[in-house]
């Protein structure tokens, strides 16, 4: 198994995530791009865990995978709170574009 393959995939996914966060105006698409970046990090952690553990006997067992597990949990929490904020914004201002939020109130039709 050549670790460079998943490593390169992770790097490219991270780059895509960065581009998405900078480019998207729609709040939910922004969150999706953030998910891409988190996933890239997870892939990196797991690949490093599997390959480094194979070569370094002294490393803490499964540290990378446990860390990835925590990242998944944090991502779930982040999406929960993030979407709650986005939906609240939509209800109050009838828009989800992150770079121009109207300051006066516009009720979205319910």
């Amino acid at each position, binding site marked *: *198994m*050549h*670790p*460079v*393959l*998943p*490593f*390169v*995939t992770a*790097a*490219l*996914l*991270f*780059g*895509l995530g*960065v*581009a*998405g966060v*900078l*480019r*998207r*105006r*729609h709040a*939910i*698409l922004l969150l*999706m*791009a953030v*998910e*891409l970046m988190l*996933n890239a990090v*997870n*892939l990196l952690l*797991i690949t490093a865990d*599997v390959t480094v*553990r*194979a*070569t370094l006997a002294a490393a*803490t*067992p*499964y540290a990378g*995978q*446990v860390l*990835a*597990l*925590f990242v*998944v*949990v944090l*991502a*779930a*929490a*982040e*999406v*929960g*709170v993030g*979407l*709650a904020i*986005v*939906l*609240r914004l*939509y209800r109050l201002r009838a828009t989800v574009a992150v770079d121009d939020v109207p300051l006066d109130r516009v009720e979205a039709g319910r």
Partner: protein
Amino acid sequence: MTSADWLLAALGTVAVAAGHRVVATDRLVRAGLHLVLCLGAVAGMYLVLTAEFLAWVQVLIYVGAVVVLLLFAVMLTRAPVGAAADLDRPGWTAPLVGGAAGLGLAALLVDAYRWTAVAPAAPGTPEALGAAVFRSWVLPFEVVSVLLLAALVGAIVVSRPGGRR
């Protein structure tokens, strides 16, 4: 290249292609569906990398819950079925910065690892990970549970209708 390498390369290609569609498509829900594909391919890579527990966690939490939540929110904010014109900021900054970050990191990693082959270590079964979490990582685990509770309460408070605005 062994069969594991071919699998990794194929799944990686799928993941990157789907990831590109996520950040480039002009149809909102399609972006979410491509995210499903991308996350699924990454879960497949976890399987090949012998991290089976993480692969199933990825499917259960990401595909089964996080993406569904995102799609749900897309539908609640009245996304059009067809293409939408105003999803992106104009300009070349974002692709340039993103491309530089991605390719730069990739170059660094390629330079660090070259074409070395590694035999896979012991698989990350639920049993092994459970032992690791509850032997070496108990305190972070508890802290994460508190954080989840805080997120839960926060989400409910933010999204509750009425109240002071």
